[in-house]
């Protein structure tokens, strides 16, 4: 079936259980799907934009109050919607990293954090992970000391992911923020895998900036996200334009420089807003999500030669698994080679695992029903047994 002659309908979510690690938290709510039907046109939220002509001031639809609600949701003072978490990283780096300044991130940071620092002219410096693939406050302190010795002053900024994208491991955000602040280093919390799926309290964590991803964890279309900060840093991070055209003398009102003025002007913000009531409610069901995910983890762990590479017990629904001793052994002699596994999963109506992956791969059970998790768990065991892999 096709949307147009060249564009196929995407019906993966309707015909299969999708385990893709980055897509789980961004699946739309019914409310967002309906809002997008009505607000798909380009500048659709601008029908009632009035002075001072800025997105976060629009009252109809109630985008202004949505911004206040977003700030409350992550317990910060000010929030803005952004075209993805990456643009939040960029705004923070653009404000606080000068040319040649070292900026701390971690050995598990997402590439867009590196690019944000690079775009600002900063120099990324990685805090190493420990043997359990976790970032600790001790490692952060050591790196701050090392960078300070080399640079002559502490780095202006540190980026820390609460849960990383590689293992879905939890890192010592609160402790790292405390250490960083003792050196006057500002802290940006990367909540791409948390804001919208589990409770996040920026002030309790002691961070200066909270960045979240709408399309990764807030049941929203891409690109969308949030950037939140404290009263202390809002005037700098959300500074307004001051320039004037030298010929025309034009100035540009209250447009915020790091945001390039307005950010999400149509389907993206309306999708976020429409999903928001459900998102606020679903973060309270995080334990249930972990319990459902455990069904799949236990199934994989019961398959001989398979090991869970993420920290155990799981504290996130994104998990990295090593099947070199199980499904990859089968791939060595199977006529479909590495594709046998994703092909077998597809036969069970399961998608989202990278085609051909049989060695180390990731999956995410977020948002699946208990029945769907049980189905996936049974499918993994069935595929193992069908291919002669012992299952305990």
């Amino acid at each position, binding site marked *: 079936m096709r949307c147009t002659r060249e564009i196929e309908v995407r019906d993966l*979510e*309707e*015909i*299969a*259980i999708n385990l893709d690690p980055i897509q789980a938290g961004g*699946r739309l709510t*019914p409310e967002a*799907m*309906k809002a997008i*039907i*009505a607000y798909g046109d380009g500048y659709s939220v601008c029908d009632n934009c009035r002075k001072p002509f800025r997105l976060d001031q629009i009252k109809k639809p109630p985008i202004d109050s949505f911004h206040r609600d977003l700030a409350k949701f992550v317990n910060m003072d000010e929030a803005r919607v952004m075209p993805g978490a990456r643009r939040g990283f960029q705004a923070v780096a653009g404000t606080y990293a000068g040319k040649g300044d070292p900026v701390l991130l971690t050995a598990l940071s997402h590439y867009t954090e590196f690019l944000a620092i690079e775009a600002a002219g900063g120099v990324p410096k990685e805090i190493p992970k420990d043997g359990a693939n976790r970032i600790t406050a001790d490692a952060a302190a050591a790196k701050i000391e090392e960078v300070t010795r080399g640079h002559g002053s502490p780095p202006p900024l540190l980026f820390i992911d609460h849960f990383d994208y590689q293992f879905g491991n939890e890192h010592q955000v609160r402790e790292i923020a405390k250490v960083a602040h003792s050196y006057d280093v500002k802290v940006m919390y990367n909540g791409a895998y948390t804001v919208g799926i589990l409770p996040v309290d920026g002030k309790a964590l002691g961070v200066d900036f909270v960045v979240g991803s709408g399309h990764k964890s807030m049941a929203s279309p891409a690109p969308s996200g949030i950037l939140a900060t404290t009263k202390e840093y809002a005037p700098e991070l959300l500074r307004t334009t001051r320039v004037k055209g030298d010929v025309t003398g034009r100035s540009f009102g209250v447009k915020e420089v790091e945001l390039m003025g307005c950010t999400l002007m149509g389907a993206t913000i309306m999708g976020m807003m429409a999903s928001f009531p459900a998102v606020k409610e679903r973060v309270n069901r995080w334990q249930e999500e972990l319990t459902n995910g455990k069904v799949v983890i236990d199934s994989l762990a019961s398959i001989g030669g398979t090991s869970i590479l993420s920290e155990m017990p799981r504290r996130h629904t994104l998990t990295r698994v090593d099947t070199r001793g199980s499904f990859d052994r089968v791939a060595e002699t199977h006529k479909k080679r590495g594709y046998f596994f994703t092909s077998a999963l597809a036969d*069970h*109506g*399961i998608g989202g695992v990278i085609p051909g992956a049989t060695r180390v791969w990731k999956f995410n059970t977020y948002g699946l*029903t208990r029945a*769907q998790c049980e*189905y996936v768990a049974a499918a993994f065991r069935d595929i193992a047994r069908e291919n002669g892999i012992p299952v305990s």
Partner: protein
Amino acid sequence: MLSDTMSRRAVDAVFQGLFALTDIRVVLRRTAPRHELSDEDRQAVREHLADLKREIGILEEELLR
């Protein structure tokens, strides 16, 4: 007068119909991949289909008169 020809009812019916289909789409997602519906799911789908048929009726009345 514009209001003599404009069909507000038809416009609303298009959106309401699409929303009813969206609700059915969500049932398909929640029950993937087997689409084995519970009694509750079936009742919900019945209601969404009834809504959809009503909106189609409005569209026929308004646009094919």
